[in-house]
C-alpha cells in the first residue's frame, strides 16, 4: 500500500516537473519576448540583455536543400540565364533579376517585351516566402517562375515553344531529371500553343469597396457620383479603371492549345511545371545572409557579454546599432519587416496613392488569381505533401478577395540587401532609401484605394535618427550566394 502511494506521489511529481518545463518552454519565453516588444514599441529603453533577447529572432536560418534540389538547380540555373526562352531571343529571367544588382534590375518598373507597371522584386532568400509577386498571385517559386515565360509583356514564349526548345536544346538535361520526354508531344505538338491566362473578375463588392474607399474626388466626379450607394452602371464604369479588368478575348494560341487532346495537354503542362521545379530549386539556393548585421548578431549571441558595444565592428557601429534600436522601437519597422528575412509574408496597405489608372488593387487581385492558378499547391502538377502542409496552402481555402483590407495591399518586401535594390515601392516611385524613410517619417500621403493601416503614423524621427536607421538598413547588405553550387 505504501509503495503504491509512494509511486503515485513520485508519478505526480514527475508530471508537475514535466509540466513546468513545458510551461516554461511554451509560455514564459514568448510572453517575455512580447513584453520586450511592447516596451520597445512604447519607447521604453531596453537593457542590453533585453535587447539581445529580441535580437535572437533575427538570426538567419539557411534553406533546406536536398540532393534532388541540387540536381534540379543545375538545370534551373542554365534556364535562368537562357535568352532562348523568350519570343525575341533576348530576354531571360536574369534580364530583370540581375545577380550583380541583388537579382533586381535597377529600373523603376520592369522591362520585358514591354514596359511593366510594377518594380522588380529581388529573389534573394525567396525560399522563405509564402507568396510571390507584389500581390501574392502565386504560392510557390515554381508556380511564380512559369508566369513570365508565357506573359506576353515579359518573355512571351508559348508553352509548346518551350517544349520545342527543350527538345532541341536541353533534352538530355530534362530526361536526366524527369525521365523520357513524353512521346505523345514529340509526335504532335503545335508550334505555338498555350492556354489563355484567365483574368479573374472582381466581384461587385470589391469594386464597390474600392470606389467607396477611393480617396480621389476627381475620380468620383468622373463617374458623376460621390454617393456611397452605387448603381450597377457606375460599378461597371469603375471596373474598367481597374487593373486586369478589361475584356479578354481568346486567340489563336489558346485555340491551338485546346485543339490538342487531353493527354497531350496534360503532358505539355507536366513539362511546363517541371521547368518550374528546376527554377524553384535554383532560386531556393540564392541567399544573402552574411551582412555586417549578421556578423554582429552572431558575435553578440555567442558571447557571454551582453554589452553590444563590445561586439561592434567597422561596418556595424554605434550608428547602425542606434538604427537597429529605432527599427525595433520608435520606428516599429519590425512589425512588418520581421524575423531574419526582414519580411512577414503578409500584405499591407501603406497608404501610397495610386499613380494613375488602371488602379492596382494588389492583394485583392492576387487572391483571385492564386485561387484559380492551375499550378497552385492544390493543383495536380505542383502538389506535394510539403507544399500542401504549408500555411499559405491552407490559406487558399479561406482567402477573401472582398475583404477591405486586401484592397490596395501589397506584400512586405524583404530588407535584406535593400541598399542594393533601388528604386523602391511596388511601382519604384521612390528612388533612394532616404526617400523611403522620409515617406514613413511624414506619412503625408493617403491611400488611393483601400484603407491605410491605422498603426502607420508619422514616425517624427530626427535627422540624426533617420541617418542611423539608414545606416542600419545599409548594414543588411551582403554578398549574394548560390548555396546549390
Amino acid at each position: 500500500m505504501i509503495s503504491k502511494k509512494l509511486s503515485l506521489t513520485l508519478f505526480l511529481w514527475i508530471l508537475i516537473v514535466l509540466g513546468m518545463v513545458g510551461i516554461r518552454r511554451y509560455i514564459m519565453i514568448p510572453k517575455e519576448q512580447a513584453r520586450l516588444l511592447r516596451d520597445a514599441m512604447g519607447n521604453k529603453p531596453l537593457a542590453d540583455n533585453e535587447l539581445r533577447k529580441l535580437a535572437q529572432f533575427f538570426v538567419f536560418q539557411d534553406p533546406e536543400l536536398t540532393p534532388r534540389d541540387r540536381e534540379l538547380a543545375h538545370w534551373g540555373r542554365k534556364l535562368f540565364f537562357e535568352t532562348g526562352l523568350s519570343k525575341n531571343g533576348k530576354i531571360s529571367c536574369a534580364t530583370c533579376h540581375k545577380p550583380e544588382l541583388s537579382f533586381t534590375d535597377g529600373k523603376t518598373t520592369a522591362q520585358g517585351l514591354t514596359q511593366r507597371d510594377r518594380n522588380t522584386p529581388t529573389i534573394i532568400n525567396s525560399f522563405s516566402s509564402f507568396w510571390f509577386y507584389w500581390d501574392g498571385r502565386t504560392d510557390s517559386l515554381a508556380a511564380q517562375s512559369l508566369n513570365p515565360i508565357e506573359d506576353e509583356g515579359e518573355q512571351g514564349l508559348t508553352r509548346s515553344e518551350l517544349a520545342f526548345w527543350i527538345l532541341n536544346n536541353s533534352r538530355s538535361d530534362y530526361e536526366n531529371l524527369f525521365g523520357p520526354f513524353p512521346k505523345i508531344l514529340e509526335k504532335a505538338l503545335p508550334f505555338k500553343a498555350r492556354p489563355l491566362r484567365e483574368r479573374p473578375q472582381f466581384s461587385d463588392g470589391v469594386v464597390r469597396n474600392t470606389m467607396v474607399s477611393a480617396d480621389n474626388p476627381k475620380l468620383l466626379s468622373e463617374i458623376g457620383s460621390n454617393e456611397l450607394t452605387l448603381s450597377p452602371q457606375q460599378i461597371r464604369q469603375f471596373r474598367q479603371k481597374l487593373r486586369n479588368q478589361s475584356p479578354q478575348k481568346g486567340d489563336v494560341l489558346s485555340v491551338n492549345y485546346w485543339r490538342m487532346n487531353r493527354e497531350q495537354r496534360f503532358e505539355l503542362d507536366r513539362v511546363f511545371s517541371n521547368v518550374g521545379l528546376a527554377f524553384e530549386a535554383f532560386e531556393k539556393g540564392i541567399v544573402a545572409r552574411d551582412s555586417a548585421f549578421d556578423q554582429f548578431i552572431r558575435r553578440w549571441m555567442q558571447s557571454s557579454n551582453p554589452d553590444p558595444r563590445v561586439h561592434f565592428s567597422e561596418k556595424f557601429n554605434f550608428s547602425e546599432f542606434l538604427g537597429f534600436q529605432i527599427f525595433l522601437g520608435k520606428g516599429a519597422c519590425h512589425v512588418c519587416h520581421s524575423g531574419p528575412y526582414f519580411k512577414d509574408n503578409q500584405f499591407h496597405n501603406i497608404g501610397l496613392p495610386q499613380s494613375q489608372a488602371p488602379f492596382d488593387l494588389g492583394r485583392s487581385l492576387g487572391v483571385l488569381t492564386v485561387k484559380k492558378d492551375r499550378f497552385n499547391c492544390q493543383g495536380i502538377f505542383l502538389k506535394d505533401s510539403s507544399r500542401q502542409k504549408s500555411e499559405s496552402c491552407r490559406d487558399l481555402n479561406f482567402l477573401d478577395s472582398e475583404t477591405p483590407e486586401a484592397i490596395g495591399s501589397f506584400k512586405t518586401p524583404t530588407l535584406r540587401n535593400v541598399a542594393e535594390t533601388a528604386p523602391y515601392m511596388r511601382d519604384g516611385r521612390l528612388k533612394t532609401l532616404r526617400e523611403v524613410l522620409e515617406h514613413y517619417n511624414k506619412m503625408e500621403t493617403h491611400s488611393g484605394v483601400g484603407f491605410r493601416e491605422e498603426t502607420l503614423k508619422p514616425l517624427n524621427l530626427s535627422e540624426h535618427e533617420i541617418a542611423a536607421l539608414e545606416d542600419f538598413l545599409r548594414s543588411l547588405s551582403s554578398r549574394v550566394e548560390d548555396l546549390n553550387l
Partner: protein
Amino acid sequence: MSFGFFSSLGLAYEWRTPNFQISIKAAEKGAELFQLNRHTTWIVSLLPIEKQAGEVLDFTFDARMPQHNHGMVTKAKVIKISRLEYRVEGVRFHMPGNWLLQFLIKDKTGTTRIETPLNIDNK
C-alpha cells in the same frame, strides 16, 4: 484577458454570457488554440444557461486588429456540427499584437454580440 496559459496547455477556454456558456477547444488534439501564423480549427460549444435562450439560430465569428484597421487575412468558415456545437475553420492570427475576437450568437431572444480581447505573442 490572456488565453495563453490555457491554450498552450491544450485546454479549452470557456466563459459565460447571460444566455450561454461558450467553450472553445482546438479540433486537432494537442493543438494550441491561439497561436501566431498557424491555421487552427476550433470546436465552439454554446450551452444555453437560461431556458429562454433556447436553440442557437445563427453563429458567426470574426477577429479584428482594431489598431491596424484590419482583420484576419482569412475568412473563417463556421460549420454547424450539432445542435450546440460549431466547427470554425480557417482561423489564423497572422500578426502579433492585440486582436478582438467577435462572436455573434442569434437565438429566439435576439442577437448577442460578444467581443473579447486577445493578445497574440510574437514567437
